[in-house]
């Protein structure tokens, strides 16, 4: 589904990613683990087209993305739930969900079935449908951010720190929903500092340090890997 090949990204003279390669197969949940500043968010932002790569190729669904715009990548089925949720604060929950249908909705088409799917996953959003984005709690905002991305009918979701700032029970709830979404056939690449949670849901994982991939493997194996246990699981 997604193949990143020797990707190099820099902010001016400062390199952020140095020849990163990774693959996500159709239907997989892949976790990208690493500390603050390791390059996780940079990688996601480059895949979704907000940042331009210096070198390397990103192929999605069999063809290279080249220098296409972020908007056109959404149209091809790549939806990115950014760090910090970035819901539209002055739009209602319903409007937040509605604007994300831009890429496929044409005159006379209805998004009612898509809305039902999102509300079935996150019933709380239905109760809050008329409220403005800023008035939601952190957990509700995260649900809205994920729900909004689903409204674009993605083949693949990029999730940046979906558990950040959430109470443990809410994080688990969000991760159960991510597993549900994956169960519906959506491929997932997620970035996470909460390693335990990420490795429970992911099939495979990569560990990134200072812009290099240092480890990769099935999630279960990585959970037992001494380097991961020491650095990320505090064992």
């Amino acid at each position, binding site marked *: 589904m997604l193949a990143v090949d020797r990707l190099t990204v820099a902010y001016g003279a400062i390199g952020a990613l140095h020849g990163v390669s990774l693959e996500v197969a159709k239907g997989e949940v892949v976790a990208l683990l690493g500390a603050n500043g390791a390059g996780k968010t940079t990688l996601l932002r480059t895949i979704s087209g907000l940042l331009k790569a210096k070198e390397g190729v990103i192929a999605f669904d069999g063809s290279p993305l080249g220098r296409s715009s972020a908007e056109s990548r959404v149209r091809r089925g790549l939806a990115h739930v950014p760090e910090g949720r970035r819901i539209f604060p002055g739009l209602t929950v319903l409007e937040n969900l509605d604007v994300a249908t831009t890429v496929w909705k044409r005159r006379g088409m209805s998004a009612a079935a898509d809305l039902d799917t999102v509300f079935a996953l996150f019933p709380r959003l239905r109760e809050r449908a008329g409220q403005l984005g800023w008035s939601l709690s952190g957990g509700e905002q995260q649900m809205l951010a994920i729900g909004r991305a689903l409204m*674009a009918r993605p083949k693949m979701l990029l999730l940046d720190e979906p558990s950040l700032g959430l109470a443990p029970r809410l994080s688990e709830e969000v991760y159960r929903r991510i597993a549900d979404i994956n169960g519906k056939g959506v491929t997932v690449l997620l970035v996470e500092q909460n390693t335990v949670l990420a490795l429970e849901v992911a099939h495979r994982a990569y560990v990134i340090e200072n812009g290099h991939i240092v480890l990769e493997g099935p999630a279960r194996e990585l959970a037992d890997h001494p380097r991961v246990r020491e650095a990320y699981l505090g064992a």
Partner: protein
Amino acid sequence: MSQQLVQLIVSGLAVGAVYALVGLAFILVNEATGVVNFATGQFVMVGCFVAVTTVVQMQLPLAAAYPLALTAMAFFGAIFYAIVFRPLQDRAVVTVIIGTVMIGIVIQNASLITWGSVPFRPRSPFGRQVVDVFGAAISAHALFVIAVAFLMIGLLYVLIYRTSVGARMRAVAQDRDAARLMGIGVDRMFVLTWVIAGLLTGTAGILVGPMWFADVNMGDPIALKAFAAIIIGGFSSVPGAILGGVLVGLAEMLGAAYVSSTYKDGIVFLIMILFLLVRPQGIFGERIGERA
């Protein structure tokens, strides 16, 4: 109420409605792009002169002349975005401000070459007709101005707050990157913003023509009053722009009649300065720190 007072209030409302239209054009562009378009006054002037061309020079019937002028202004907005604003938009704010001021001067002088330095007085659809309002003789054109301006404001409100295109425009204004990630064509929304700015200022230009003269220097005074209106109303507030515009229009007309016609502009700016001192966020504005 004395006849004169009724006349002053109606003409104050008419002038104020024009300021409100121009103020909304300021706000719309500022909200969408984060930058004030200092060529807004020249937009109004061009709108007025395009109507001079269609009404006076081409002698078209008004039912064709006005829509044609507005269409031209919609294109003017889109072209302004494409050749002026788009190349500037990722630069520092100061660069954009100076750029729009400079282009405003270019537009003003290009208009001088095109339409000449002799002012025109386009006719009103109602000529010099007067209507009786509470016993006072009111110019029909003033009532027409109020009706058209508020119709435009109503349409703008419906577009921005009641349609999904409007929701997308607001999404772009609130978080440009997040809007991109939702597949919203940010460029397209910007074009639309500038087209609407062209229509609002074009309407203002068409309406003021028969009230004042069409003159290439008319843009800046109107833009300054509209700017005062949005400062008084609250810089990013739609109802604020409307109320601010009406207040400025009334202050100008009543001030000219009862205080001093020489200092009528001074009265408006004095009110603006008082607001900046006492309530800098304006009537409907919120302090930056209170933003959620």
